[in-house]
């Protein structure tokens, strides 16, 4: 069942119903026993009374049986019971001496004293018999069971009817209580439903019942995470937009120059600039996407066993031809295996290689090699550029850090992306200057181990 309210209502109704039913059964049984006992006691009293009256000769023997219906003797509790008791007086020989009006002519019981049940003329009788030795008679006082059952039924009805009437009322009260009890849930639902999409404020916990706290706390936690993610995204979008504005401004300016200038050389130069501007902008866009991918990932990536050489080859293959021809891959470490996440390692290696190409003279090679050191695998990218001033070395992996003396100014993102990607695959990025010049970027990866 999906509705908590319906479930609660059902449980309450069923248990209340069960309790009610057993109470009713218990009342029914005990009332019946009680009524039987009281009526039996009256039978016995009446029989003994009649017997003693016969003994005392207070009444004539022939009319003695009528005494049972005398008002002072039979409590007139209700009309239907007025003529309920029937009395027969039989001689020891078996002749009917006297009988009350309500009594049948057929003998009500046998010779035995005490209670008995008999069937007379198709009707059932409860009879108490007393033998009166002095007068040689038997006094029998009986209840017609038909009437007695009606009496019991009336008593039961008097007790159970109000209880039965209470049943729907009780159900109504339960339904109402459940509604009231669940109201905080509805309140919370409507509070949250009325929010607009950007409202990620935590739900106030002060007025909430303690049972709902776990749900609200979990929800607030989620709100918080969503808000943080959204803030990150907004910050990133704004950052990306700003980063793109400068190269776009360059492109627009060059395009305006190409349009406005009548000089063929100026036009050609502007168009060349536009070409390389588009390349730079594409690279920036890719770096921004890399950054977005790194930032968006919440979970640690799964590290797989593989050959870093394969990743390096793929990166080099994707480079523009002119740049590809400047890369030299040393084959000696190509069989080495390590643990990494291919996409992240690719991101790191690509940014390192691009960085190396951009910071070394056009006629110099960039060397990529792999080496095993202890339990680790090193991916080295070595260039023959001017190197990084020692004072700038600690800062080059900071975002947007751009060296002062670089002719080819980058976005200041490449090394930062490389470091973050390497860190995510539980590796280490080290940068150091080479002798006599150039930079060696080392990615330390966990060995494949066994």
């Amino acid at each position: 069942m999906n509705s908590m309210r319906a479930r609660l209502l059902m449980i309450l109704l069923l248990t209340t119903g069960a309790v009610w039913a057993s109470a009713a059964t218990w009342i029914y049984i005990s009332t019946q026993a009680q009524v039987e006992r009281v009526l039996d006691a009256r039978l016995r009293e009446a029989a003994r009374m009649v017997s003693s009256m016969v003994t005392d000769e207070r009444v004539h023997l022939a009319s003695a049986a009528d005494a049972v219906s005398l008002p002072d003797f039979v409590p007139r509790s209700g009309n239907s019971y007025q003529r309920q008791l029937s009395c027969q007086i039989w001689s020891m020989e078996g002749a009917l001496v006297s009988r009350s009006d309500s009594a049948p002519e057929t003998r009500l019981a046998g010779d035995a004293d005490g209670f008995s049940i008999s069937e007379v003329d198709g009707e059932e009788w409860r009879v108490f018999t007393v033998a009166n030795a002095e007068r040689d008679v038997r006094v029998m006082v009986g209840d017609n069971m038909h009437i007695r059952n009606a009496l019991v039924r009336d008593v039961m009805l008097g007790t159970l009817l109000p209880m039965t009437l209470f049943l729907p009322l009780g159900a109504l009260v339960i339904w109402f209580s459940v509604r009231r009890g669940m109201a905080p849930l509805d309140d919370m639902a409507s509070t949250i439903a009325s929010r607009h999409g950007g409202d990620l404020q935590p739900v106030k916990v002060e007025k909430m019942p303690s049972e709902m706290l776990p749900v609200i706390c979990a929800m607030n936690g989620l709100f918080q995470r969503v808000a943080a993610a959204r803030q990150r995204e907004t910050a990133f979008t704004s950052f990306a937009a700003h980063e793109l504005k400068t190269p776009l401004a360059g492109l627009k300016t060059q395009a305006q120059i190409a349009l406005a200038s009548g000089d063929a050389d100026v036009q050609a130069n502007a168009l060349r600039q536009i070409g390389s501007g588009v390349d730079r902008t594409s690279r920036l866009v890719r770096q921004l996407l890399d950054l977005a991918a790194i930032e968006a990932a919440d979970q640690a990536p799964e590290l797989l066993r593989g050959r870093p050489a394969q990743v390096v080859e793929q990166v080099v293959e994707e480079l523009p031809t002119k740049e590809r021809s400047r890369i030299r891959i040393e084959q000696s470490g190509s069989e080495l295996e390590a643990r990494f996440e291919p996409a992240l390692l690719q991101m790191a290696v690509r940014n390192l290689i691009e960085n190396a190409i951009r910071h070394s003279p056009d006629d110099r090679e960039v060397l990529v090699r792999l080496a095993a050191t202890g339990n680790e695998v090193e991916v080295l990218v070595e260039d023959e550029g001017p190197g990084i001033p020692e004072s700038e070395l600690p800062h080059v992996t900071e975002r947007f850090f751009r060296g002062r003396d670089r002719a080819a100014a980058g976005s200041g993102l490449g090394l930062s992306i490389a470091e973050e990607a390497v860190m995510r695959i539980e590796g280490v990025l080290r940068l150091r200057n080479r002798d006599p010049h150039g930079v060696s970027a080392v990615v330390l990866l966990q060995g494949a181990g066994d």
Partner: protein
Amino acid sequence: MRVLVVEDDPILSDGLSVGLRMAGFSPDAVGCIADAETAMRASAYEAVVLDVMLPDGSGIDFLATRRQANDRTPFLILTARDRIPERIEGLDAGADDYLGKPFDLDELAARLRALVRRNAGRATSALTWNDIVLDPATLAVSRAGKEIPLTRREFTILRALMERPGTVLTKPALEETIYGWQEGVESNAVEVHVHHLRSKIGHGVVQTVRGLGYRIGGELP
């Protein structure tokens, strides 16, 4: 009109240099604050176009330092961060104008002209001397309502002279006006340009003050 462009993006920087030269300016371009400081120490600029995010610091901070040192050169801030609070920050730091990237080259040139004009205390950009009218916005020169086509350098020399009528400008001063320091200067370049200018605009306008330089108007020696 010499302007300094401080912009670290090579393509934009190149575009600004070429574009502003086409619009009649003589731009010098540098890529960082340190170079900008050196350039401003070495020569006087009529305006500076300044990027905010530079490799060695914030252009806004650089501008604030210049203003503290009582530098009154007009600064135009050129930046990707052009939302209102950022504009306010830039203007409060002492910027004279603010332009968001990407921008229109013609608008940038117009704004620079306005800055220079305001700095010189003139109400219109067009310069007038006798029947000669020079409009820096359209690079047009006319005499007695008749259009006179001039080359960029001839125009620049005429403008420099018309900006300060009666004042003698030395040959090195004119050289500096017409050439940024990326361009080589031929030894007799100014003389050649003045010669062409005179033949186009008519004699009796640009006067030679022997041993000193050139001027427009004023008493004949």
